[in-house]
């Protein structure tokens, strides 16, 4: 195969991986700080995607623009979920958290099924079929826009956690729970805020992803698994790690599909995951907390 085929596929894989990375950032924030095993992460993403579609169909606004309001709605949803439902489970054993979120996931998936039906939905923007010609490369326009939006949002998040007082407070909670309490931070409120923030990331990612992927109610579980794979590979507690993990997984899957049979390309992500878990459990950029 010619070199440009590999290049095309690589670029495509990286761009898609970027968007999944944003979804994973949300999980990294939730899992890393609040320490909740959010097995409803993919379902939250699906909600965001449907919301984006509904808004697009009624208001005609581009999903990239709507990333912000959708993120806002998801923030509220996440905050309420954490404060109202999940908080007592933080100290409970993992399987308990897991069951709670599984029940939530079941409810979400089937409510979506009732409301939206089983058919796949998507948005058709004016640029849905465009592609850029860059020398021998043909790059999907939608993926470029999606990737760009993701980078902008990730940078904003990064700045928030680095420089904003609230962001620093959240990091403090993650680094040292007791210390944070001692210093007088309202940890419970911060947890709710963090969950909300993680959910907002998911909201933005969902609004962007809807440009690339058709959504069905059953999409949730696959996205949850993907988010966990990316977070574990990239490193828990590291946002840049989550983004890098997304890029890596996107790239690996794309190239695996090219070199081997595409129907088995997921095996490589799982293989990578197993290797990471065994030899570098903190992930590529994670801190050795375990």
């Amino acid at each position, binding site marked *: 195969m010619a070199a440009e085929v590999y290049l*095309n596929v690589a670029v495509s894989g990286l761009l898609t991986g970027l968007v999944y990375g944003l979804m994973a950032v949300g999980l990294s924030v939730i899992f890393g700080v609040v320490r909740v095993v959010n097995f409803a992460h993919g379902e939250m993403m699906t909600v965001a995607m449907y919301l984006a579609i509904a808004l697009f169909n009624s208001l005609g606004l581009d999903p990239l623009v709507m990333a912000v309001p959708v993120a806002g709605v998801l923030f509220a949803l996440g905050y309420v979920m954490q404060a109202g439902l999940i908080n007592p489970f933080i100290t409970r054993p993992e399987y308990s958290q897991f069951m709670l979120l599984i029940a939530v996931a079941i409810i979400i998936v089937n409510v979506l*099924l009732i409301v939206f039906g*089983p058919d796949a939905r998507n948005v058709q923007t004016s640029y849905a*079929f465009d*592609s850029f010609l860059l020398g021998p490369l043909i790059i999907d326009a939608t993926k470029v826009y999606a990737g760009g939006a993701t980078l902008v949002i990730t940078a904003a998040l990064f700045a928030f956690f680095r420089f904003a007082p609230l962001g620093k407070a959240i990091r403090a909670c993650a680094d040292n729970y007791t210390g944070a309490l001692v210093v007088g931070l309202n940890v419970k409120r911060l947890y709710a805020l963090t969950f909300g923030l993680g959910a907002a990331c998911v909201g933005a990612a969902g609004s962007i992803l809807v440009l690339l992927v058709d959504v*069905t109610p059953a999409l949730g579980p696959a996205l949850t698994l993907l988010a966990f794979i990316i977070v574990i590979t990239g490193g828990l507690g590291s946002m840049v790690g989550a983004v890098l993990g997304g890029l890596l997984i996107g790239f690996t899957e794309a190239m695996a599909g090219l070199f081997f049979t595409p*129907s088995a390309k997921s095996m490589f992500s799982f293989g990578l995951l197993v290797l990471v878990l065994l030899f570098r459990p903190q992930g590529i950029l994670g801190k050795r907390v375990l």
Partner: protein
Amino acid sequence: MRRTSPLSCVRITRRSFAAGAGAAGLLAATGTANVARAQSGPLKVGVLLPRSGAQAGIGQDCQRGVELAPAMFKALGLPELAIMNADTETNVEVARARAEKLINDGAQLLVGAFDSGQSAAIAQVAEQKGIPFVINIAAAPQITEQGYKFVFRNFPTAPMILSDAFANQMELFEATGAAPKSVVFMHANDTFGTSMQQGINAVFPRFNMPYKIVEQIAYDATARDLSVEVAKAKATGADALLMVSRLNDAILITRELVKQRWSPMIVLSMGPGWYEDQYLKTLGKLSDGPMSFVPWYDPNKTLAQQLEAALAKAYPGINMNTNHVFTFEALLVAADAYKRARSSDPKALADAIRTTNITDNVSIGPGIQFNDKGQDDKLKNAAIQNRGGKLLTVAPKAASNAKPELPMRPYDRRG
């Protein structure tokens, strides 16, 4: 799929019973169908379809064929059927449990279930209980190779679909004078796709096709992104695309073909997806061109035309397709057998079904008949082509109503 519970019972909806009772009352009032009065009331038919789960959309589409049946049967003078609807939830165990429950609740005949795995499970139950089971749609050949006496299938097996596909392609190449020299075969790695792929390796050598299959690309049926697969296909330099896919993949692949700027000479699809309403609606002008080689209705047959008219009236804007046709025909088989058997005894019904010969039917071929394995091996498959949001039958000649367009217009020249 992960949401399905271990089992549930059948939904014998009040609605369907009321409908059945109402229709029966109407029949009695109008005084038609003396035959119906000779038996003891309507035949209880259990219809098993995936109404929830991954195949929910298809199950609901098949249901339309069920809904159209009562009125049409009345007009044909066929006996009354009391339909008992059940949901297999796209799950093999649930399918089996529902079949048991239907039989327990008095079903005298079963119809279903769209999916090969679920149909196989139901077939076992039916065979064991001695209740006739008429399969509407399921392509795995093994189901009618088990030596069952109570299982009947009015649908082609994967090898049948393939043989007709190649035969029709030869006919089309001859008619238009154009043929691809190389194709790349892409298929979803699911039950149907793999059956077809195994079939192709067996059937293809028997035909003298003008093209070579340069590569076989199997992709994950649940893939959300097929850009890598299409890039791979494009890189083979093949003239045309040979496909076995479902609806979502068809849409994804078409989008990628446009984005990656590759217009194959023709898309030859041997399965669902490329002709479905959602595909046509979503892609508009970009949906024209692909040819699908599928079990289909014969547009020149009277009953097909009547069914199409009824469908247009009840569900405007929906093209008649395989799901409607074969689900309707399964019920047709049931009603016809009931009429001839003059009894609702399952053994009598099964014997009656075995001697079915309905020449005035909807699908292509000499009519509905079953061989001693319970398979209708006389079915013929059509080649249809998308044009302007409509589906035209372009082969076989005897059942066609339009001329084929080959090669199809390139994607970047469609305005």
